[in-house]
């Protein structure tokens, strides 16, 4: 049994196939999802989180089919995500952003301070969210997703906008989340992060699953280098 299983998912926009019959799974721990631009990674996240209906295929969470469920229902089943193009609530303060998420799962609002400290942006707690730097906004999205106490956490390019020290701290956080038994799926372009922290990596190219394996297997895979370096 896998925490997440995507079975034969295809997404078409008109005649263009963005995701082409992809089957993959993710277990507790950190799973990397990499591939060049336009490979279909974010579209696949949209399908898993329920924001987009696939043209065909199924999404299973702990073996239960959730393909027909809406995004808010999936959240209640333990799915959370962040966005590549940031989606923070700009009119609210950083703290309020997290409180909205806590309240939706009926968790106490006072946990917000703890979560903000955990991702390392406690100093921004009272700033309006559309005024904080990109890196802090990304970490805010992470804190907000964690506030729902997810079993399956989808992170879309979390490290872009982070400096070296912040990236290292983020890696450490990934380890903790993994130790807590959560399944984290990571779309990421920072290969140090992917190679250093993922237990398993899936590579997408042109909408299809190119290969899967451990970080060292991926690193030595010829097709992967070709997909990136052309």
């Amino acid at each position: 049994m896998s925490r997440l299983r995507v079975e034969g998912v295809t997404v078409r926009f008109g005649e263009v196939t963005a995701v082409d019959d992809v089957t993959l799974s993710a277990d507790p721990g950190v799973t990397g999802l990499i591939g060049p631009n336009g490979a279909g990674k974010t579209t696949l996240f949209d399908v898993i989180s329920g924001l987009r209906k696939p043209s065909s295929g199924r999404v299973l969470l702990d073996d239960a089919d959730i393909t027909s469920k809406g995004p808010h229902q999936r959240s209640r089943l333990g799915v959370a995500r962040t966005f590549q193009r940031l989606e923070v609530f700009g009119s609210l303060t950083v703290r309020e952003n997290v409180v909205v998420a806590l309240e939706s799962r009926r968790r106490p609002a006072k946990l917000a301070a703890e979560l903000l400290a955990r991702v390392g942006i406690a100093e921004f707690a009272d700033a309006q969210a559309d005024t904080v730097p990109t890196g802090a906004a990304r970490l805010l999205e992470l804190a907000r997703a964690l506030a729902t106490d997810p079993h399956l956490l989808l992170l879309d390019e979390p490290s872009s906008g982070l400096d070296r020290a912040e990236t290292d701290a983020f890696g450490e956080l990934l380890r903790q989340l993994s130790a807590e038994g959560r399944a984290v799926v990571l779309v990421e372009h920072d290969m140090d992060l992917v190679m250093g922290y993922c237990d398993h990596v899936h590579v997408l190219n042109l909408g299809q699953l190119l290969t899967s394996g451990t970080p060292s297997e991926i690193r030595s895979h010829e097709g992967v280098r070709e997909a990136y370096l052309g």
Partner: protein
Amino acid sequence: MIDLMDVHAGYGRIEVLRGVTLNVPRGTVTALLGPNGAGKSTLVKVLSGQLRSSSGHVHLGGVHVNDAAPDELARAGLCTIPEGRAIFPNLTVAENLRLMRGDPAVVYERFPKLKARQKQLAGSMSGGEQQMLAFSRALITDPAVLVIDELSMGLAPVIVAELYEVVKELASSGVTMLIVEQFAETASAVADQVVVMAHGEISADSDLATVYFGGTS
């Protein structure tokens, strides 16, 4: 031909370009490479007039163009092909070509597939054909400067090769080009100069494998 001097730009309070200086000499090809989020597309937006730089200077052909609108630049001979499918999906192929101002025969000769589909809605074609159509503008409008953002994104290698054949021809005919790519080797093969961008700056480290796969590889 393209001169950027200490250009800063971003969205709202978020700065994406942190002082970019770049020079593309007349009649040469520069490949601009780098990972996602490096600011490549933002740079293209600044060049094409879609995004105003917050400081620094942008010159095209020696003319200061910081405040020029995209349509003015386009009419002055700058051809920008943005990332994604830069076509009008609800117009037919022939209508798309008519909008480009020029003789479609050139395009039909180079891409016979498009001729066969000229009455079809552009949005109903495959990704590769759509990109051919978008790229047609570089052929048909005889631009002085050509800026292409991620020509190969999401395309099969065969089609990328076909498109790059045309890029090579244009390069040899003396068009000044800035090619923004993730596909490093394809683009580098055509380029006179390769520049790597990371974190909103031009990176001193021009070894791509390092940029993509980290120092440990």
